[in-house]
């Protein structure tokens, strides 16, 4: 799939969580091939922003758009969101889990390449219940490769990963960007992406209170 002329545009976005205004007047844009790292202290709204883009949190005012326009798919179906929870079922095996996601997304016919990218092939037949926290995280991240979607939203993707896995994830993110994809990540750790732009959400929040 070609990702040329793709972009994410956020205009004048506001977010309210339980009567509290988290941020207001947030505008930013992201071009194909670009990565944006959201920074800022806890509670500044990094997770809320990612969930808003994913359609999981209501947009109080402002707009989010993903170009080029696609009538056939809702916006949420054109991006990947990896949050704090891995969305795994202990009773299902690693392979069954990946198979389900691929079928649900209408994605890859063969899930093994995605599992291999996160070094999960030796564990494919194991029930998820037997995995360690890091292995579960890797399985959660394998969703990114099970269906090709232009925008990746990653909320603290490196939590629980060892250095080798972080390297692996970094390589996959670079490949995604090279293919014209976009990445927006909220993280406290440096992901080590050379070309990543940084965006401190605290700056927007300060404007609100000022």
């Amino acid at each position: 799939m070609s990702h040329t002329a793709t972009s994410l545009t956020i205009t004048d976005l506001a977010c309210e969580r339980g009567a509290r205004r988290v941020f207001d007047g947030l505008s930013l844009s992201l071009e194909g091939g670009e990565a944006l790292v959201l920074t800022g202290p806890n509670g500044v709204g990094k997770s809320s922003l990612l969930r808003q883009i994913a359609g999981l949190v209501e947009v109080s005012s402002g707009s989010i758009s993903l170009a080029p326009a696609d009538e056939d798919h809702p916006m949420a179906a054109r991006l990947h969101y990896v949050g704090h929870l891995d969305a795994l079922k202990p009773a299902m095996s690693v392979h069954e889990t990946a198979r389900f996601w691929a079928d649900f997304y209408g994605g890859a016919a063969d899930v093994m390449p995605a599992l291999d990218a996160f070094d999960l092939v030796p564990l494919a037949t194991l029930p998820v219940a037997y995995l360690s926290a890091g292995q579960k995280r890797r399985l959660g991240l394998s969703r990114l490769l099970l269906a090709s979607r232009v925008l990746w939203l990653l909320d603290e993707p490196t939590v629980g990963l060892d250095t080798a896995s972080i390297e692996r994830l970094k390589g996959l993110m670079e490949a995604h960007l090279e293919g014209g994809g976009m990445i927006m990540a909220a993280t406290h750790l440096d992901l080590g992406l050379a070309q990543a732009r940084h965006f401190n959400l605290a700056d927007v929040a300060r404007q609100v209170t000022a």
Partner: protein
Amino acid sequence: MRRAFSAVLMRDLRLATRAGGGGGMAVFFFLIVVTIVPLGIGPDLNLLAMIAPGMLWVGLLLSALLTLDRLFQADFEDGSMDILMMGDLPLEALVAAKAVGHWLTTGLPLVIAAPLLGLLLNLDESAYPPLMLAMLLGSPALSFLGTIGAALTVGVRRGGLLASLLVMPFYIPVLIFGVGAASAATSAMPSGVYGQSLSLLGAVSLVSLVVGPVAAAVALRANLR
């Protein structure tokens, strides 16, 4: 889209039948509820035969209610709901897939278990076919209407109990027409009652097939965003 629908359905069936999925729990509960009745009111077989259709329906309703919190709560807690809401599959279709899975793993086994429990309550022999037919027609409504209660209480602490309170009134027509069909066969009722209650029961089920997923999808959107 059909692929996503069947993927969700197959996953729910698989999870329900795996260890800890609680697939057999509803049938077990049904059995206990029906057993408690004679212990409460006495072993008089004539009396039991008279109340059997009603008791079986009440037992079926309670057992179906018991498993409602399984519909969305677990998926909400482990983050699966986020992903399920982000596919090409419309939320209404997602709810329908889950309702079908719920019916196949609780409603259908309960209907199959009902004749056995009819033996315990000395149900009249002529009442078996109409009772089974009525339960087969009415039980999908229990799953589809149940999605509304489950969707309204997703993320709420002790939501299972609240969902039961919310949904029980919706179940009342199913109960009334269902019992009507079974007792029309045993007691002296006007001749048209049997056919009438079955068609009304079918109508309630058909309406619930639409109302359930639509209302549940609205509730899920309001609740989770």
